[in-house]
């Protein structure tokens, strides 16, 4: 799923990284970034991704009564190697509760192929868009917050993919 999020924050971030890489390129002639240059780029946090985040959601078999599937992959930046056993936190406004409520939050671990899949209640449109939230924040890699949007509010699954870089 391709997602183009154009707004002031992402533009600022993009502009800032262009500036920063320009500074690095002139300063240390790109020595810090050669491996990444032709490898898999890390996923940037999406704007609004961390909204209504609650630290330390428990690992669960299923959030609430289920009926909706959140799935995705976790890979390493550069070589794209799948990352097993990574904890991904998931929350959303669903038919069983609002985004900020504890019962709307849960976490799961990636399998040996770097894939994760967690059943949760049906996501419904909130603040004008049917969307979910995911977080990687275990510390080994840099924290990433995602906010994927469903193509239709009637969808009963949603995907999000992480490419993590060393913290």
């Amino acid at each position, binding site marked *: 799923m391709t997602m183009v999020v154009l707004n002031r*924050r992402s533009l600022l971030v993009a502009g800032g990284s262009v500036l920063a890489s320009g500074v690095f390129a002139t300063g240390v002639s790109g020595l810090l970034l050669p491996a990444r240059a032709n490898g898999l780029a890390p996923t940037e946090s999406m704007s609004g991704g961390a*909204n*209504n985040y609650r630290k330390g959601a428990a690992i669960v078999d299923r959030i609430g009564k289920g009926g909706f599937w959140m799935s995705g992959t976790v890979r390493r930046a550069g070589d794209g190697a799948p990352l097993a056993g990574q904890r991904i936190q998931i929350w959303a406004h669903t038919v069983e509760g609002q985004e900020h409520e504890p019962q709307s939050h849960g976490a799961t671990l990636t399998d040996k192929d770097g894939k994760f899949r967690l059943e949760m209640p049906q996501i419904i449109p909130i603040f004008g868009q049917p969307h979910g939230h995911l977080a990687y924040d275990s510390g080994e890699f840099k924290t990433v917050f995602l906010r994927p949007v469903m193509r239709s509010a009637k969808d009963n699954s949603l995907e999000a993919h992480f490419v993590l870089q060393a913290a």
Partner: protein
Amino acid sequence: MILIWIALALVIGVPTALAAISEQLAWRGPVYILAGFAGIVALGLVLVQPLLIGGYLAPLSAYRGRRAHHWIGGALVLAVMIHVAGLWITSPPDMIDALTYSSPTPFSPFGVTAMWAIFIVALLALLRRRLELRPRTWRFIHMPLAIIIVVGSVVHCLLIEGTMETFSKAVLCAAVLAATAKVMMDLQVWRKRRTLRGEGP
């Protein structure tokens, strides 16, 4: 004469009624529901404003229409404040993102820009006499802001996926655009009227 009132009641009433029976309401708290309906009411008021000032709502006289336009303007400010406050209570981080123009939702900047335009017009309307704004100056300020309010509100509303039913929402938005375009053409707001009104230097 009665037709325009019936049309107005339908164009505002039908989308409001359809939103009131939306299944989405089942998953929302009372504050969020109030905030949503304040937004729908605000869009309805944005439709009433050009109709009043254009004198299309007979039997209201031009004078009464103008007076009503002022009061409806105040009601619009109130509706927008309830809309924003209710959404803030529902999800503070999402509302802060919207107000700081850093929201991931494409409709937010349109709504926030329209909100500021509404506040500026209301404030200037209150101060109009004290600032001794001449009609021509007032028109020069109010017309661009009115366009920002109308276009901002319409785009904001159309891009939102919420309780409103798509078709009735589109009809309401089209009516807002049409009423605004008609009154601006009828009153020739862009024409220099120096000679007509004797506002010469």
